């Protein structure tokens, strides 16, 4: 078994103990990139020289007996909307092509401090707007289970890189499901933390009141380790939560006896038979493990999607105003400032980004602000109250992660609204700010992985991950990555 397959915790322990060098592990990862990149296109940028240099520095520290961090020698991949000093950061957009940030995102700095080795920057939907990684100016990423399917999005490159055994740990961002949905499509664990738990300094902003950074891994334990390494207060992000980040690993083995689990019927009824079946079977497994499982309905959850598709584009239209051809990125010349701005933006942004800027600008424009953005923010209050009321009766909620298995490349490109429906089960957690995680739970009718989602109240990641670990233990073999490229299980019937 390769070191990558053994996972992040095993690698870090072995590197610290001198049983393997960080360099050898990183070489494994680089070789796997070379084997898979042409087929999968997970990466915009790979960093073989930097990765070897960083790995050698960790090995040197181990030999010298110096303290190395919790991720010593662990190769990681970063979604290309996380700023890396001196390394091109594109957001999959022509408007940022060639831009080398003058600073590292806090998450990147913390990963380096923990001994992780960055091997590359991964593909995403342009500015994280999409659910398939097809809205990338530099071409789509393919799902390792089936090369004709999307990996999900927007963090599709990071999800696919973990699924294909290229890295044991990768990072993405989740604004409406952009970690959890690709995790479900690729058979990996994807975690969106509580809003504010992880600093967003250096994450290129999409919708600031919703964006959170989180990890992908093949196991709940590795995702937990990956969250701990980056969580905690940061003076550079005024929305980061104060106080010490909680230690999460201690609770993983705790068992679920007596925990009250609510199966969210509203979503179960709205998804494909195999996604509904996975959620129902996961509920049964938790009941068998001693949890008290009941079905519940939160009718307000159905308002999440329309509220999200007002709030997210509105905030995006404001955040993306900074791409004006003046300080960085593309410039298309014009006779005056306004035409230079307008030509630059029309040429630099792709079709979906232009569409979202338009809808967001409309929703914020005079006369419509209250009818759309104001109303969506009131819906947000309604939803938060409804979920908090549910958490008076339940410790965690369980639902499908996605409405379907990974869909074919090209299937939804022509119909943006159908693409938006991919976020049905995931947007609620972004609107409420609560944590949620997708765990691979089954193979669906099409032979592709299907995840289930565990949701918890704000800052109850430990409880959520304990349930996720119980589900992981109960999941049938073969439902989760790593997987050989094109290694889809045969379709059932």
């Amino acid at each position, binding site marked *: 078994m390769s070191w990558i397959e053994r996972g992040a915790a095993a690698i870090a322990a072995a590197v610290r103990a001198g049983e393997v060098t960080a360099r050898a592990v990183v070489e494994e990862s680089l070789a796997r990139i070379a084997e898979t990149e042409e087929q999968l296109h997970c990466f915009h940028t790979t960093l073989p020289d930097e990765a070897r240099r960083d790995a050698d520095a960790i090995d040197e520290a181990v030999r010298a007996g110096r303290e190395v961090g919790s991720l010593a020698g662990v190769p990681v991949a970063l979604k290309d909307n996380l700023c890396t000093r001196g390394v091109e950061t594109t957001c999959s957009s022509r408007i940022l092509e060639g831009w080398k940030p003058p600073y590292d995102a806090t998450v990147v700095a913390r990963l380096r401090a923990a001994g992780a080795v960055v091997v590359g920057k991964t593909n995403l939907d342009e500015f994280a707007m999409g659910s398939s990684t097809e809205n990338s100016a530099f071409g789509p990423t393919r799902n390792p289970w089936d090369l004709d399917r999307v990996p999900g999005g927007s963090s599709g490159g990071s999800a696919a890189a973990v699924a294909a055994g290229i890295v044991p740990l990768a990072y993405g961002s989740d604004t409406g499901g952009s970690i959890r949905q690709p995790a479900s499509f690729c058979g990996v664990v994807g975690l969106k933390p509580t809003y504010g738990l992880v600093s967003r300094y250096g994450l290129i902003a999409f919708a600031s009141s919703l964006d959170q950074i989180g990890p992908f891994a093949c196991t709940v334990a590795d995702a937990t380790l990956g969250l701990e390494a980056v969580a905690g207060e940061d*003076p550079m992000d005024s929305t980061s939560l104060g106080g010490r980040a909680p230690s999460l690993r201690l609770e993983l083995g705790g068992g679920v006896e007596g925990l009250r689990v609510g199966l969210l019927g509203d979503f179960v009824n709205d998804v494909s038979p195999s996604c509904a079946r996975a959620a129902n079977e996961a509920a049964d497994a938790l009941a068998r493990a001693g949890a008290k499982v009941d079905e519940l309905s939160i009718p307000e959850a159905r308002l999440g999607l329309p509220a999200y598709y007002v709030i997210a584009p509105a905030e995006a239209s404001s955040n993306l105003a900074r791409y004006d051809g003046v300080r960085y990125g593309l410039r298309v010349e014009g006779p005056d400032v306004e035409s230079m701005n307008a030509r630059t933006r029309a040429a630099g942004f792709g079709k979906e980004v232009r569409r979202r800027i338009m809808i967001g600008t409309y929703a914020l424009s005079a006369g419509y602000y209250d009818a759309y953005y104001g109303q969506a923010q009131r819906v947000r209050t309604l939803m938060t109250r409804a979920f908090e009321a549910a958490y008076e009766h339940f410790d965690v909620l369980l639902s499908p992660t996605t409405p379907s298995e990974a869909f074919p490349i090209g299937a939804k490109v022509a119909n*943006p*609204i159908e693409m938006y429906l991919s976020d049905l089960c995931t947007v609620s957690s972004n609107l409420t700010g609560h944590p949620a995680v997708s765990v691979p739970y089954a193979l669906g009718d099409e032979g592709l992985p299907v995840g289930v989602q565990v949701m918890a109240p704000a800052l109850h990641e430990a409880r959520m991950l304990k349930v996720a670990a119980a589900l992981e233990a109960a999941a049938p073999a073969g439902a989760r990555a790593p997987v050989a490229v094109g290694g889809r299980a045969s379709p059932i019937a």
Partner: protein
Amino acid sequence: MAELGIDEVRKVARLARLELSAEELADLVGELSALLDHVDAIRQIDLSGVPPTAHALPLVNVLREDVPRSCLDRDEVLAAAPETEEGRFVVPSILGDEP
């Protein structure tokens, strides 16, 4: 069906600083109308008396001590700009030729 005409779409494109082709503007009339229909559910409910949530955290006025600290290197930042001169960003003429 939401009412959104070509003139309104053109106005929004101007506000958004997007110089779009006539064809794309025409396409957007239908696309944006369809999107507005999709989100119409939230306009149909009575939410009077429900306060808006701008943000998932109850944070207000995050303050810090006003002490000097290092910031990004000027030359490194300017190196990313399309055009600079004497340590500044250069943009096309802002004021017209008329006095």
